C-alpha cells in the first residue's frame, strides 16, 4: 500500500502540463456556470427596470461573469509558466472521508462514523502505519462522543441510526 502510494505520487509529479491549459480550463468552467445562470435567470423572468424579476440579478451577474471568464481564458492561454502540481490522491481521499461521514453518521452513529472518516482521511499520508491510523480513529471518535454528545449535547446518536 505504502509503495503504491509512493509510486502514484511520483507519477503525479512528472505529469505537469503548462498552466495555460489548466488556467483556461478554470475560465471555461466559469463560463459554463455563467451560461447556466443566464439561461436559468431568463427562465425565471427578468421583470422590468421598475420591478426586477427573480432572474434579473442572476442574469446581470451571469453576463458580467461570462465576459470576465472570456478575458480570463484569453489571458491564461498566453501564460507560459508551469502548472501547479496536482495531488489527486489527497483530493480523492479527503472527498471520500467527507462522503463516508455523510453516509455513516445517520446510519451507524457518530462514533463509528468519525472512526471511518479518520481512517479514510489518513490514507494519503504513508508515514502513519495502519495501527496508528486505527488508534487515531479510536481516540478522535471517543473524544467526539465526549465533547459533542456528552458536553455540548448535539443531537447525534453515538451508535446506531438517528
Amino acid at each position, binding site marked *: 500500500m505504502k509503495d503504491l502510494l509512493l509510486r502514484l505520487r511520483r507519477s503525479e509529479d512528472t505529469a505537469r502540463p503548462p498552466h495555460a491549459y489548466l488556467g483556461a480550463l478554470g475560465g471555461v468552467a466559469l463560463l459554463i456556470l455563467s451560461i447556466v445562470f443566464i439561461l436559468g435567470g431568463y427562465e425565471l423572468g427578468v421583470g422590468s427596470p421598475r420591478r426586477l424579476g427573480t432572474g434579473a440579478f442572476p442574469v446581470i451577474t451571469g453576463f458580467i461573469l461570462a465576459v470576465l471568464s472570456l478575458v480570463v481564458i484569453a489571458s491564461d492561454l498566453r501564460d507560459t509558466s508551469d502548472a501547479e502540481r496536482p495531488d489527486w490522491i489527497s483530493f480523492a481521499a479527503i472527498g471520500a472521508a467527507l462522503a463516508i461521514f455523510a453516509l455513516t453518521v445517520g446510519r451507524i452513529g457518530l462514533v463509528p462514523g468519525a472512526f471511518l472518516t479518520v481512517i479514510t482521511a489518513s490514507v494519503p499520508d504513508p508515514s502513519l502505519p495502519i495501527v496508528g491510523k486505527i488508534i487515531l480513529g479510536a481516540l478522535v471518535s471517543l473524544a467526539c462522543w465526549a465533547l459533542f454528545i456528552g458536553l455540548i449535547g448535539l*443531537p447525534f446518536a453515538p451508535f446506531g441510526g438517528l
Partner: protein
Amino acid sequence: MEIISGFGNGLLVALQPENLLYCFVGVFLGTFIGVLPGIGSMAAISMILPLTFYLEPTSALVMIAGVYYGAEYGGSIASILMNIPGTPSSSITCIDGYPMARDGRAGIALFASAIASFGGGIVGMIVMAVLAPGLAELALNFGPTEYFAVILLGLVAASAVSNGSPLKGITMVVAGLMLGTVGVDITTGAERFTMGIPEMRDGVHLVIVAMGLFGVGELIVSIRANASGAFQNEIDYKKFYPSRAEWKAMFGPIMRGSGIGSFFGALPGTGQTVASAVAYAVEKKVSPNRAGFGKGAIEGVAVPEAANNSATQTAFIPTLTLGVPGSASMALVIGALMMYGIVPGPRLLVDHADLFWGLVASFLIGNILLLILNIPLIGLWVRLLKIPYKYMYPTIIVLICVGVYSLNNNVFDVWLTLVFGWAGYLMRLFRFEPAPFLIGFVLGPMMEEQLRRAMLLSRGDPTVFLTRPISGTLIAITALLLVYALYSGMKARRARQRAHAVTETSDLQQGKS
C-alpha cells in the same frame, strides 16, 4: 454629562458580583463554543438561553452578551490555527491568520487577534455609549440606494483582496455574487437554481462555503507539503508578543477596523461578517503593507478582528433602540428580552436605562475578561500546532464534518462542503483565490435585495443612485477607487514589462560576450 452618569450607574450594575460572574461564565463558554468549527455565536446563545430564564433581565443580557462576543473571539482561534472558521465572521481572519500560523507566528497572530478584538470592543462600546441615539437615527436615513452604494464600494474594494491577478479577483467576486442567488428569492418566494433539492431552498450556508473553500481546500493542498512533518514551522515560544514594529503596524488597522465595524454593526441587517469583509478590503487598499496581505500580514488579522468585535457591540444599537435585529443572534437577544416583558425600541433608553447602561458597562468588563482569559491561553492553543500534521488533519476533517452537520443537523450540508472543498482545491489549481469569492458571496444577497428595492422605489429610474447625496458620494468614491485600481494595475504592468525588457537585454549581452 448624562452619558457619564449613565455609564457610572451602569458600571455599578455590571460590577455587582453576580453580574461579574455571569459575564465571566458567558465569555468563557462563548470562547470555548466559538472555537469549535461551525458552531457560531447563534448556536452558543441558543445553548445558553435556557440557563438565563432563571436570572434577572440585566444578568441574563450581560451573560448573553458575554457568550456572543466570546464566541466571536473563539471563532478566530480556529481560523488562525486550523484555517477553519469557527464563525462566519471569522472566515476573513483565515486569509492572513493561517499563513501567520504556518509561518511559526501563531502566537503573535492570536495575540494580535486578542488585542484587536479588545480594541474593537472598546471602540464599539464607546460608540454605543456616545452615539447610540444618533446612530440609530442615521441608520434610519439609510435607504436601499445607500445600502446598495455601500455594498458596491465594499465589493470594488474586495476585488483588491486577491493577491494574484486583479482580473481573477474581480471574476471571483462576481462568481460569489452569482452563487449567492441560489435558494428561495425572498421577494417573490420563487426557487432559484435549487435543482429541486429541498435543502437548497435556504441557499448555501456561509459556513459551508468558508469551510469548504478554506478548510477542506487548503487541507488537500497541505497534506503533501506537511506529510510526516509538523503542522507549521518551528515555534518560538518566547515570541508570543508582537514586536514594537508589529504593534505600530497594528494600531492603524485596529482603529480603521473598529470605525468600519462600528458603522456596519449599527446598520440593521449587515452584521459582523459584512463589517469584517469590508474592513479587510478597505485596509488592503490603504495599507502601506498591501503586498503582504494574504501572506501572513499582521494587519490582515488585526483589521477583521477589530471590525468584527466592534460590530458585535454596536449591533446592539439597532437591536435595543429600534427593535430591529442586525443578525439572527440579535433576534435571539430580542426574544430573550421579550421573555422578560421588555420591548426593545426607542423607549428602552428611558424606561430601562439601568439595563442599557449596565449592558454598555458590561462590554468594558467583558472585553477585559476576554483579554485576561485569552492571553494566558495563547501558549496552550499554539502548542496544539506542535501535534504532527498526520494526526492533525484527519481530526480537522472530523471537526469540519461535525461542525457543518450541526448547522442544520443534516448530512446534505456535509455533501455540499465536499463540493465546495473540491471547488476550493480546483480554484487553487487554476490560480483563482477563494477570498474575493467569499466576500462576493457574503454581500451578494443583500446587494440584490437593496438593488431591487431601490429600483422599485425609484420607479425604475437608475439615476437615483447618483442623485441621493449619501449614495451619490459613495458611488463617486467607488468610481475613484476603480480609476485608481486601473491606474495602479497599468503602472504595475508597465513596470513588469520594463523589468522583462531589461532581463532580455542583459541575457542578449551575456550571449554576445
